[in-house]
């Protein structure tokens, strides 16, 4: 061997594989303004569509007169439900088994609902003409309160299903009832409560919020009448699902639909579903024979596409007097708006909400969720969380604090006593989930040590004394949250969308010169997939990450996949990538054995090459083997070096984390300053620590927004009062705290590279941590649960209710 041959470690470093803070490939175009987002697409002859929307939350549509709108110069067509009926598209199926009006058919059921679609030569003309569509409404009583939805005299929201006794998820008990879903053992849970020394019961509300990515939902539809082919560019987190759903409802054969998701400006769950805008753009292109672009404005985005949460969770915990949790019950009313357009795995109408036992060894539990219709926008998407996991984490983490308070125990001590112990993994929860791996006590201990938790409690005690003496008007709050997520949907035995198992895929093709392309069924919206998948391949195949191109979002070239949401890209497509690499590697090993004239088993892998065991000077690098694959394969072997893997995960993955937050609350103004926020995350094997930290910063900032100020609010007449960035809180750099991030590493035992997924953890853990901190500030005064969001007004009101302003 040449003296100058680099060592294994040096060669490994050059590959920029897993564990390396590789700079992002995507950034080179993004920092120059050369990303390619949907609204950047311009096609010859392209038209623009815009909606006429309902000012009413609930009204009968008596007449729609499009004459004036159609007469505006530059208007090409105006589409209403009547037009759509001619192609049987006035209604569309939702991912949750319900149906949804594409354009108002007979009545409107939420404010800003789509009523007519105007198509014009330019976007200004389309907007002008949309204002001129004349609609005569007859207002109806409306209801926006989910807790009143099943009252005897509640307005009938969905006349189309009012007499149906069965919904997509079983029996319905009221005309505004969508489903009831239960999990756990009610008898055992009830028995635990009967025997309990101490119980708590609290209505914990996670308000309606919106993912609000900076780029709204948009598409360009182009139908080629001669070929009978539709090309649809759009902001799609799940392009293949859009293609299949598009084919099922439009009856265009699936092979004649080309769905392309170019660069996406953030998704966070907002871009999973299928919206009326997409259907209208497609129909408009078919009708006009020209490409049609539809771009949501921000008000349309916040008020019509994909809200999240809106869960009213009556949560109970039973415990022994020395602080061992013995039971958990939660009865939830879930507001789905006017149509159940929830983006969940189809069999799970309340998603994975039964992760509500959280990180704790709870012997008996039961949950029951009733979904209801209200006169609010449809949806129920997973905003930066696996389906309904953040709701569950908020309920359990809030409830654990409330119980600790009642037991007069420190919230950390109480959690330590109930956390699942390391030796219990793999741990089967009372709801039947098999938690793959965890080391919870180590994580929480590290968090507590790092922030100096005990000292903080001493300081808080002093501050409380000073407050009582009237020496300060500030209260200090310390928030603790320990969360476990369930991500990586998912195993085909649990998860499907409209019957399609939730596997994902990777296809890798290695070129003769040792570079290659990897195509996947997922779709990055900022997560940096082009960078990180290449790192997995670099480590698995010993080829430099820089030589691997990663391509997503084109349904013609990518293998079928279910898309990116629910932290599923790394757990599912990351696994598919590793498995496809291993097929390639196995073939390369046979080629190497043939070239080196040894048996396959006489070779061993060394970073980027196969070498002969005991004779390391005899080797073939992957680059050499790539070349050989195209001209000197063993007799009988097919040439080429490529593989595809469809990965059906054997289980979910269960990332976890320990978060601690310190806040200072001014009781006279209600303003809350975040003094510190420490986040320890364990996402298993870490592929790119730089990107992981970035994901955590971003997720924590979204959690901060949700906990401290976000709410999609409706007044009692059904007017959405928070539909622009004037009223809907997005944190700026000024309010956003500085984040301290940390980690432990507990690989997933069932994942090929041990990775668990991370993008959503900080949102799931962050929200309860902030909320617990604000609540903790007031806890010593007897308050148990101040509702989110903790904006100045609500916090001031909490102080007022506690008599602190007298």
């Amino acid at each position, binding site marked *: 061997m040449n003296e100058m041959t680099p060592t294994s470690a040096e060669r490994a470093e050059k590959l920029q594989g897993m564990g390396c803070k590789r*700079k*992002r490939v*995507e*950034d*080179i*175009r*993004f*920092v*120059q*303004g*050369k*990303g390619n*987002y949907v*609204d*950047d697409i*311009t096609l010859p002859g392209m038209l623009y569509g815009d909606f006429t929307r309902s000012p009413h939350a609930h009204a009968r549509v008596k007449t729609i007169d499009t004459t004036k709108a159609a007469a505006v110069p530059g208007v090409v067509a105006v589409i209403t439900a009547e037009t759509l009926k001619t192609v049987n598209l006035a209604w569309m199926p939702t991912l949750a088994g319900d149906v949804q009006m594409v354009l108002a058919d007979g009545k409107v059921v939420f404010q800003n609902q789509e009523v007519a679609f105007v198509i014009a030569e330019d*976007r*200004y003309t389309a907007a002008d003409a949309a204002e001129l569509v004349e609609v005569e409404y007859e207002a109806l009583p409306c209801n926006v309160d989910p807790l009143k939805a099943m009252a005897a005299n509640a307005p009938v929201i969905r006349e189309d299903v009012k007499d149906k006794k069965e919904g997509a998820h079983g029996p319905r008990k009221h005309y505004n009832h969508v489903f009831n879903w239960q999990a756990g053992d009610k008898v055992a849970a009830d028995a635990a409560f009967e025997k309990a020394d101490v119980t708590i019961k609290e209505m914990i509300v996670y308000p309606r919020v919106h993912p*609000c*990515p*900076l*780029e*709204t939902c948009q598409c360009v539809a182009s139908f080629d009448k001669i070929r009978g082919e539709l090309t649809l560019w759009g902001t799609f987190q799940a392009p293949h699902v859009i293609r299949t759903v598009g084919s099922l409802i439009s009856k265009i054969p699936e092979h004649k639909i080309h769905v392309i998701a170019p*660069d*996406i*400006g*953030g998704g*966070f769950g907002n871009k999973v579903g299928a919206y009326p805008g997409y259907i209208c753009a497609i129909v408009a292109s078919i009708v006009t024979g020209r490409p049609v672009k539809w*771009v949501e*404005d*921000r*008000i349309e985005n916040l008020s019509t596409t994909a809200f999240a949460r809106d869960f009213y969770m009556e949560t109970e915990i039973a415990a022994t007097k020395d602080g061992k949790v013995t039971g958990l019950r939660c009865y939830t009313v879930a507001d789905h708006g006017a149509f159940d357009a929830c983006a969940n795995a189809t069999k799970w109408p309340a998603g994975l909400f039964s992760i509500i036992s959280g990180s704790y060894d709870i012997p008996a539990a039961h949950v029951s969720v009733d979904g209801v219709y209200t006169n609010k926008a449809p949806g129920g998407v997973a905003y930066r969380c696996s389906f309904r996991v953040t709701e569950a984490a908020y309920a359990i983490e809030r409830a654990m604090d409330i119980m600790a308070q009642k037991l007069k125990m420190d919230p950390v001590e109480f959690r330590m006593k109930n956390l699942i112990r390391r030796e219990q993994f793999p741990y089967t929860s009372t709801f039947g989930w098999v938690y793959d791996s965890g080391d919870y006590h180590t994580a929480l201990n590290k968090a507590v040590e790092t922030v100096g938790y005990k000292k903080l409690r001493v300081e808080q005690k002093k501050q409380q004394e000073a407050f009582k003496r009237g020496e300060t008007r500030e209260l200090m709050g310390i928030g603790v949250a320990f969360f476990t997520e369930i991500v990586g949907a998912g195993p085909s035995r649990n998860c499907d969308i409209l019957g399609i198992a939730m596997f994902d895929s990777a296809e890798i093709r290695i070129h003769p010169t040792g570079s290659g392309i990897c195509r996947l069924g997922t779709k990055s*919206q*900022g*997560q*940096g997939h082009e960078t990180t998948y290449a790192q997995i391949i670099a480590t698995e195949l010993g080829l430099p990450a820089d030589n691997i191109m990663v391509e997503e979002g084109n349904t013609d070239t990518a293998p079928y996949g279910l898309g990116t949401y629910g932290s599923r890209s790394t757990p599912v497509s990351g696994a598919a990538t590793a498995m496809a690499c291993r097929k390639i590697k196995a073939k390369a090993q046979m080629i190497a054995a043939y070239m080196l004239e040894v048996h396959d088993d006489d070779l061993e892998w060394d970073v980027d090459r196969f070498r002969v065991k005991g004779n390391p000077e005899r080797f073939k690098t992957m680059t050499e083997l790539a070349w050989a694959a195209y001209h000197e394969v063993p007799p009988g072997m097919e040439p080429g070096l490529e593989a595809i893997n469809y990965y059906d995960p054997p289980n979910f993955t269960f990332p976890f984390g320990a978060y601690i937050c310190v806040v200072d609350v001014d009781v006279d103004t209600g303003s809350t300053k975040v003094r510190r926020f420490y986040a320890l995350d364990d996402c298993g094997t870490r592929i790119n620590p*730089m*990107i992981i*930290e*970035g*994901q955590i*910063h*971003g*997720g*924590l*900032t*979204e959690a901060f927004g949700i906990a401290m100020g976000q709410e999609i609010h409706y007044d009692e007449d059904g007017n959405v009062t928070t539909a*622009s*960035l*004037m009223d809907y809180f*997005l944190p*700026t*750099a*000024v309010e*956003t705290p*500085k*984040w*301290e*991030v940390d980690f432990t590493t507990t690989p997933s035992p069932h994942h090929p590279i041990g990775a668990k997924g991370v993008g959503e953890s900080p949102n799931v853990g962050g929200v309860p941590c902030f909320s617990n901190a604000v609540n903790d500030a007031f806890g010593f005064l007897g308050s148990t649960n101040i509702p989110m969001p903790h904006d100045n007004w609500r916090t001031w009101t909490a102080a007022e209710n506690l008599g602190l302003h007298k």
Partner: protein
Amino acid sequence: MAKSQVSMTVNGKKVEELVEPRTLLIHFLREQLHLTGPHIGCDTSHCGACTVDLDGKSVKSCTVFTVQANGADIRTIEGMAAADGTLHVLQEAFREMHGLQCGFCTPGMITRAYRLLQENKNPTEEEIRLGISGNLCRCTGYQNIVKAIQYAAAKISGVPFQEAAE
């Protein structure tokens, strides 16, 4: 609608165009000049994705009529790199410090940061945070954007960049 003639300098090039008087500058830049770097994120001048530099000031081009920019000197993200393709130090800094994720706010953010550093060569963290508070980012949590601007400021001033301890 009758069109108005406008002339201005965009990224160092003279342009003369006809526009409807109501055409917003962002639509003019994106659709008439095909400069699709600046983006539209909110329509209400809150998000700053459309930020461009106009006569030495950061403006939100969704809230400026093109005719108001008649005679102006405009710089967009497309005008940041050198003619030979060398990235502007801020562009390099955003990549080095992982100051972007989806990339949608990035052109406006970098354009704003460029003006900020023209106004204040050595801003404190607080000044940076205030200085970019008209530009929203939904992905990064700002921490690495702040770091990127500090990195660029240091590099412009020729001093070594030191990351603040977390």
